[in-house]
């Protein structure tokens, strides 16, 4: 049985509050990637350091330093959103956001995973999925909206 890492508790940093839990985050994204892509290793562009740390530990994710090389771009800041809007990315590149407002800002973004009212929110837009010929399984239907 895999033991809880008490050692983790001992490595507490002074005063640091926010930390993303690696295992559950990866499970969630691995599950999504399996249904978005038909390849074993996904190239992901993400600027956020917390996400970088989490994704770096996955054998199925390769972090890339340039937007043009990514299969999946995570829009985690206004700056990345601006970059994405300025550049001409491949139509195969999938854009995904970590804030609701980015979904409103760009119609190229297929969905978002974000916090609202202290609960994580998963959201996809049907017409944007259709544009990418993406068909998510029934388990996602609760999280797919026709429009914003």
């Amino acid at each position, binding site marked *: 049985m895999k033991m*809880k890492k008490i*050692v983790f*508790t001992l490595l507490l940093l002074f005063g640091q*509050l*926010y930390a993303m839990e690696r295992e559950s*985050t990866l499970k969630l994204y691995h599950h999504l990637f399996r249904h978005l892509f038909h390849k074993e290793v996904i190239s992901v562009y993400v600027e956020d350091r917390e996400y970088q740390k989490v994704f770096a530990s996955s054998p199925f994710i390769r972090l890339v330093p340039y937007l043009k090389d990514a299969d999946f771009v995570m829009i985690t800041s206004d700056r990345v959103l601006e970059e994405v809007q300025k550049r001409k990315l491949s139509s195969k590149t999938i854009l995904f956001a970590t804030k609701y407002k980015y979904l409103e800002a760009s119609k190229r973004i297929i969905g978002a995973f974000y916090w609202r009212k*202290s609960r994580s929110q998963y959201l996809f837009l049907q017409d944007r999925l259709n544009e990418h010929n993406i068909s998510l399984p029934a388990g996602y239907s609760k999280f797919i909206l026709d429009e914003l």
Partner: protein
Amino acid sequence: MHISKILILFVGFLLGSVLQASEVERLLSDYNYKNDLSQKTIDENKGHLVLYTREKLERMHAKTLKDVFMTTPVIYYHENRYALPDPLASGAFEPYRSNFVRLYIDGVEITQGWMGSGLALYGDMNIDFVDHIEFYYAVPSFETSVEPAYLTIFVYSKDPKRDSGGKLTLLQGSRGYSTQSISYGEEREAYSYRYNLSHTDAKRTKIDNGTDHPLSRDFERTQLFGYIKTENQIAHVQVMKKNTDSLAGLSLDATPLVSTVDYLNLHIDYGITFNAHWHAQFAYEWLKRDILQFDDLPLLYPGESPFNRLDAVTKNSTYSAELTYKNRRGRHHIVAGLKGRKKILDGFSVKVGERLPLDFSQESILSAFFQDQYVLSEAELLTLGIEYSNIYRDAGINSDNLWQLRLGYIFASDTWSYKAYIYRTMFALDPFNRQVSRYNTGSVSPQTTRGLTQELSYMQDSYRARVMLLFMKDEDGLVQNMGEGETQYFFGVFNYDYAFDIDNKINLQLYYARYKDIGPIDKLEDYSGYVSFSNTYEKFDFYNAVVWHQNSIDHTHYFDVTSSLSWNASENLTLTLKGQNLLDRAKETSLFRVSPTTGDLLQPLSISPVDRRVTLEMEYTF
């Protein structure tokens, strides 16, 4: 009968609304739970944890720390005769009782200096800025405590990483109760910041005292919280202005003609992490109290000659500093540090009345601690802590030398966990009690408390169960009992949380306490229970909860029923209708009274700190 019907309805609704969770929902549920628990603030070695996650606070629609306190075992929520949050208040004439409970915001203690615990003013603060709250039972790890405590409350503010942008909250309640609150947080490249400004005009139920002047505990509070932080530095500022009607105040028979105390508090702190080993923290706090008490008979006061009017202003400052060192050597994780605190009574000016009899104005505390956490195996930890504190006071009052010892064992697997602590701790009388109680002007021995605590928990994907047992015994108790024996306490807490799916959850808590030789009572037993249902159906959130209390003194069953219904009208707008203490049967405690003329005990007043109230709230995020 009403309660059982309501419970049946709730359970029926709950079961009816349960859906078969999909794999995606299970992954999300797991993500939510583990990310709530992965906050790096949670430290297994701080004690026995009762956690209010961000999601739970949101579902409870907890707007103040008081809303949370009402469901916390062992202490729950009480107010004293000055209408201040004082969970350990006995209803007698002590100035403040809850000095054993300490409050921290983002790891920095909020201390009201002369008053002792930060709960006095912040115990019912607005918590719109709060991410989650951790209650640690048993003597805490010495890393965090400048002064001894056996319950520590850690409130952590929201991080712009998760909660960027703003939120406006407008709340209107029955009897004219209203709150307005605005928050904003943002993460920039090099720093992040958050602020929250709130205003509450609390119109509360009056307490009939048999005169034409019923007791009032209305208050008006304006509160500012803000921080700015970088990777390794953080600075907070907090200001609270609270004008209160102070219930019975200094009136011995609880029939004041005027009873008000206005508070103005400032707290600032700064913390810096130099590297992986060294951390320093500084805090300053200032508190001003404007006191106006007037009765037709002599007031409760330690002065030489009786008088019936007090119009005074007090000011005090508290300076705190700490330096902490952490390191790992093989299986040892060592933490050591030095902490200092100085409490100064800056002024006590009396316009009408009499000065305090004790010329006491400074208290200094210097503490040194050492703690080793030894990793026995990947799942087992042994912890040993020792702390020495010297408390020096001016005006020739005795100094105190306090020793704290703590030994603990922790086991944790994916499903089971077990914790046990044995400790010996010492508490000194706080300055406020020393100054305003005529019985404490001389030398007062520190209290020694010995304790043994244990906790066993089991968790699976959908449920978690936990049993917590605490036993404590006092020697030289600061709160003297009337009998010959030393006060002994036993507490047992059972928690069971079950998640039907991501939207439907139930929380159950049972609590039993047995006290021996406490105050004038030889034996006291206290029972309570708490059950809550949280449900989401499409755009609606439901929260229904009952807190039940009973004790061996009056055998009365008290029920505090809370219900809320939220409509998430859009991504940015939520409307909530909430009712608290709907049956008007929440727990009541006695407020003791004495005749100022004869000294005879009068019939105590029975008062609930929880008002029956219905509120309508609008939340708008931007």
